[in-house]
């Protein structure tokens, strides 16, 4: 089982992000379970959501306490809460930022995880460019598909097309594809 925890702030769409990832996995004939953190959400407050992916039925209903991956929509959360709590030593960390890991003071975390498992991606900038609004979900999921390989980009794109109308969907798919390519280029350079 592969478990992903999403961190964001109320209004950034962490719940939608987890749902989209679960649909992408479902489209690959896998079992997936997405669920919110069940809080009284309000705009701007730290919020989390979860997604489990497995090849067999998922029966577990506890929150994800030891994630295989973290997707962080807002890098300012690192100062507010213990984002990396429980992250497995083999885990992945993907952060929405145009800044480097060192600039975000994430070197210590990066050193604890396998090489190439920690990455920043300018998802908000890519979203502004392709969608016209700083909605980072699609770009983060595109980047995550390349970083982790847990789902394919075409499944992320299909999940986006299921969720949104054609015009918005295509803009989001473009953002996801650009982020996927950016990660591919970064890993080729490394």
């Amino acid at each position, binding site marked *: 089982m592969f478990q992903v925890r999403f961190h964001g702030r109320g209004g950034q769409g962490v719940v939608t992000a*987890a*749902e989209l990832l*679960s*649909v992408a996995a*479902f*489209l690959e004939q896998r*079992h*997936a*379970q*997405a*669920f*919110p953190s*069940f809080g*009284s959400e309000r705009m701007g407050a730290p919020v989390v959501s979860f997604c489990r992916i497995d090849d067999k039925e*998922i*029966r*577990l*209903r*506890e*929150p994800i*306490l030891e994630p295989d991956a973290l997707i962080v929509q807002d890098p300012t959360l690192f100062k507010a809460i213990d984002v990396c709590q429980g992250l497995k030593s083999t885990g992945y960390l993907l952060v929405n930022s145009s800044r480097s890991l060192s600039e975000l003071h994430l070197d210590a975390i990066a050193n604890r995880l396998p090489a190439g498992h920690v990455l920043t991606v300018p998802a908000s900038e890519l979203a502004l460019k392709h969608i016209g609004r700083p909605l980072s979900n699609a770009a983060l999921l595109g980047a995550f598909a390349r970083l982790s390989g847990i789902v394919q980009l075409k499944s992320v794109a299909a999940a986006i097309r299921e969720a949104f109308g054609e015009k918005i969907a295509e803009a989001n798919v473009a953002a996801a594809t650009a982020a996927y390519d950016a990660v591919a280029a970064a890993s080729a350079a490394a």
Partner: protein
Amino acid sequence: MLKQIEGSRAMAEAIGLCRPEVICAYPITPQTHIVEGLGEMARTGEIKNCEFINVESEFAALSVAIGASAAGARAYTATASQGLLYMAEAVYNASGLGLPIVMTLGNRAIGAPINIWNDHSDAMAVCDSGWMQLFAETNQEAADLHIQAFRLAEELSMPVMVCVDGFILTHAVEQVDIPEQADVDAYLPSYEPVQVLDPKDPISIGAMVGPDAFTEVRYLQHYKQTLALRLIPEYAADFKSRFGRDSGGLLRSYRADDAELIVVAMGSVNGTIKDTIDEMRADGLSVGLVTLVSFRPFPTEALREKLVRARNVVVIEKSLAVGMGGPLANNVDLALRNVAGAPQVHSVIAGLGGRPITRTSLHRVLRRALVQPWEGSHFLDLNEEIVAKELHYVRKVRRSGPTAENLLRRLGQAADEAAVKTAV
């Protein structure tokens, strides 16, 4: 059709397939998404011949459903928590009048203190009101139970509550096989009421009944629920033959046939318990599970048959009868009453007000039950430190203030102290 779908939406689609004619509900978290979905489907015509009625309260919601059902319409509503309490008088009327309404209960704690999260307090508050109560383990089962519930309700002319864990199921996105309309039509015949208000053939429903017949009316209500003990497995078997899945029934067991220790639980926590049992079995421990689907009627004989060979039974439940203990544990005791050599029953109160029930905590409590079983109620993951501090404070200070606010303040202090320690 297999879909990756939010639980609430899956339930709405399944309820729509049952061709309800009147839907009437008032929004309350965490049930709201279900009736939002149904409202949309009624408006777009996806559900045909269906009137969605907006009302001003839960009391009105169920009252409208009662009127609609008495007039011969297939009626549906949904609620949770305080909403259920607000309609409590109508809850008893629906069952007392023998009206086959189906209601989804998005299980949620009851205040005070106000809490929007999941437990089974709301279902327990009305468990003896004459409604049947079926508890879903997964969103697939939640969807399927509604289809079975309409058939059961209408066959017996008695209302059914489908209980689904708030947030944990209602807000989870997972795969659900949504049945085809033709298959649901073949399984669920159209509603043929046993009593109907018709201006052309007037009758009265709701007579005042004195001591001369009240006991008999109640006895017949009780008798109908004993008939449901036969119908529930029969309808689940028919459902399986048509749809190919195990959904519903009175109860299910998991690795329990040879188990020394059997866990009994209701609702979505059963999945986490199954994973825990697999891990304990891998360690050579003899543990199994009985998942109770039907809480009302209570399947006394079927449960006794499953439990009687075990040494210990641990009942894990998301409810507390204050001053007594676990209501489900108490009911399980009933199944073992007067049985020679019956297993010992141990009660665990867990998941109140949405506290997560984790495998780690389940391992701890079940392993303890194997070596050191306890009497009374065990409160899973109770924060004994803040409880002890509060008890000490209350003993010293007469005007000690509100308990909830005091505990929140203590939690805040503990968090601050931990933060200072980390910073140092």
